[in-house]
């Protein structure tokens, strides 16, 4: 099987976000970058599928500035065989990212199955997976929490609202967006980390994948940090007085009821 995984490099979950000087983005200086945790689930799922199907290959693909090659190396260290990096600007939107990834995938001989995370933890847009599927003409399943694979089809279990699950049977090729609970991503072994350093990551430019700056539909400006958290308030008095005061505060100050 020709297995592909799309991944995004995002700031580490503990990062203290600062705005860029022009407020059109975040200040990336000093940020520790990681593979978006949902994408790690996608990598793990791809690797497990490969391990069950001898002769399969896993290719990790990421679109982003030069730094995202590190994220591809992480996937290679976990056990992916090949890497593709499409260089797109730091400020790219979901559409440009998805089109660039699809463009690169179309250059590949055959894509049997495609994994992504359900969303990236930085912008949380949850757009790219479905856009890639659209550009590829693939059916897709988002919020994947379980799957049974055969050579041509997948029985997929996805999470839906209210803690319920939906079962879908889907023909390959198709795209699957991983949700927490799908698996526990592995920790790369040292020999694999060493080997990953020597694996090749294919570099592609926007023009190579048939994209241009015009594919960016959204431009961001005027970012603002959320207001700092206010100190909590303690409501005093007996239970009845507390309840009364709480209702008043929620109604008049917080304006939620």
């Amino acid at each position, binding site marked *: 099987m020709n297995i592909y995984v799309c991944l995004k490099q995002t700031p580490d*979950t*503990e990062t*203290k976000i600062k705005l860029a000087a022009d407020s059109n983005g975040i200040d990336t200086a000093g940020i*520790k970058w990681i593979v978006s945790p949902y994408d790690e689930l996608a990598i793990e799922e791809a690797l497990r599928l490969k391990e069950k199907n001898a002769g399969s290959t896993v290719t990790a693909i990421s679109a982003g500035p030069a730094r995202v090659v590190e994220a591809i190396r992480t996937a290679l260290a976990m056990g992916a065989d090949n890497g593709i990096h499409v260089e797109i600007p730091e400020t790219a939107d979901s559409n440009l990212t998805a089109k660039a990834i699809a463009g690169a995938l179309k250059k590949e001989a055959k894509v049997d199955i495609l994994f992504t995370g359900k969303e990236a933890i930085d912008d949380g847009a949850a757009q790219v997976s479905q856009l890639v599927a659209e550009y590829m003409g693939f059916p897709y399943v988002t919020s994947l929490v379980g799957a049974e694979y055969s050579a041509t089809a997948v029985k997929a279990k996805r999470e839906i609202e209210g803690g319920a699950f939906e079962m879908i049977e889907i023909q390959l090729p198709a795209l699957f967006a991983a949700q927490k609970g799908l698996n*526990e991503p592995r920790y790369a*072994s040292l020999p694999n980390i060493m080997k990953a350093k020597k694996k090749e990551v294919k570099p592609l430019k926007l023009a190579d994948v048939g994209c241009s700056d015009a594919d960016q539909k959204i431009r961001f400006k005027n970012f603002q940090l959320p207001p700092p958290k206010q100190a909590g308030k303690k409501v005093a008095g007996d239970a009845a007085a507390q309840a009364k005061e709480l209702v008043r505060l929620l109604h008049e100050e917080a304006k939620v009821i």
Partner: protein
Amino acid sequence: MTWQTFVFIAVAGAAFGYSGYRFTLLYKMAKAHKAKAYRLDRIYERILTAIANVLGQKAVLRKKAAGIMHATIFWGFILISVGTLEQFLSTIYQPANFEFIGHSAYSALVFAQDIFTFAILLALSYASYRRYIIRPEGLGKSRDATIVICMTSSLMVAILLMNSFLILGEDPWFKDALPVSSVLAGVFSGLSLNADTSQILHGVFKWIHMLIVLGFAVYIPRSKHLHLVAAVPNTFFRSLDRAKGIKTINFEDEAVTQYGAAKITDLSWKDALDYYSCTECGRCQDLCPAYNTQKPLSPKALIMDLKDNLYRNKEKILAGKEDEITPIIDENVTEDVIWACTSCRACEIACPVFIEHTDKIFEIRKNLVMMESKFPAEVQSVFKNMETNATPWAFSSADRAQWADGLSIKTAAEDQNFDVLLWVGCAGAYDERNKKVMRAFASILKKAGVKFAILGTEEQCTGDSARRIGNEYLFQTLAKSNVETLNRYNVKKVVTACPHCFNTIKNEYGVFGGNYDVVHHSEFIAQLIAEGKIKPSKAVDETITFHDSCYMGRWNNVYQEPRDVLNSLPSARVVEMSQNHDQSMCCGAGGGRMWMEEKIGARINDKRTEQALATKAGVIASSCPFCLTMLGDGVKTKDMADKVRVMDIAELIDQSTS
């Protein structure tokens, strides 16, 4: 020359030949181990320790009754072996006895032999009483031991009978030097045997004696009594320093493809010698916090199981069939066994033959983590936090200096004019409880007028937990980065409140070019008090019990300073727990256990807390952030948090000084 000469030469030749063959195999198996262990430095010290601990029985005698029993048997055997040698020689060639040393010297020799033969019988009676009646848990059941007790007792009885019939038959000139045998001879004289019969009986018991000795020679190489031979070199080759680091892997060396120990031969010859030396006394097991809380780990069983693995793979090892050697992890040495260790080293300190248990566990962990990515699931996020934010806790590296907000402490980057670098450590920087300790210690430093700085956000986890869990690669990344930072600021002296940071920087950074004068805050505060730079003056009207941290105590031999610090508190009464100093019990957090769930057995920290509470002290004092956390949790579990406070020594001193 008589027929006896020929029979003896044939039998002894066969016995010693076979024994020699077995020893050669043991030597070859040890030599087939691949990891290096250099133990030929500081020869003079090695000779001294061998004399003290082999001839002097120093380590054995740490346990009183069993120690005296063993020393009696040991010294007795040395004396008796001289007699056995004499007997062997004179059997081959009659005049070759030791009487040439002079009548008085020879009399003294046979006197000592006679007395010790009896003393050994007494010691063996105690050994049997202990093994079969008292039955200490650590000793366990051992067929080997029963065989040896029977053989040795028979040997002693044979000697006494042989000598008493010698007295009756030959009436030798030195018979007055054989008091015990003379008493026996007195008893047998009642049988009114003639001289010839007595001589025959003397010959019979002499042969019984010699055959048992030869039997021993055959039996030893394949029994636990191999320690008779192996413990001597094992003591000589022991690790001479208490403080030691984990073996450093050279990741630059591309020829190295196996990290840590997957197979028994991935360990070193010294590890093999350790198994050969183990006599299964169980002292290690008695003190093991994991064993004592029903974990699957027993250091004694681990050594026996590794030895068993080695023996099971004997043929393959000797034939060089490397690929066929079965893995270390098997139904005996399970992963749970390996992860149960807190690296407290109570086992190593207890071992009378200086077996190094923890080094084996560290090497096995390295293989599990780096080669196979196998470790308790909860550790993965710890590794990831260390990789991205250089701390095991899930906090941003940008927040590392937040604990010092408002304290106007300079970082090394801000002001290079400092005498001491305060190494905060991840606990002091991020853990709410330990931030208070760090603020108290910084307050002491200010009161004492110490010119100090911190690294601020440039400080990273020392990597202690990563290394002890087996992630040597991650450890080295952190270590190299820290050494680079420390050297950039030309740091000479480091003080830290964390024994884990202390041990790592002091004992494990040297190989990466980091050589500093590293001091633990217990030592530093003790010195400030001794120099009069701070003076605890406010009364602390409390009974305080001090919990020894393994990494200050057993790993670095610092026991007195924290006690001196506590004793300097006016009105304080310092009491000891049942287990203290090098017999202290671990809190359960060492060896990376801080970051693992404790799913099997009782909780180690609860057990230690019980010991602390038993002292009725109002304050449990600690000098380690991990211990503080573990004992704090223990006190809460025992519902004693409102009655007993768990405090760092720095907090107590800070409260008592102005």
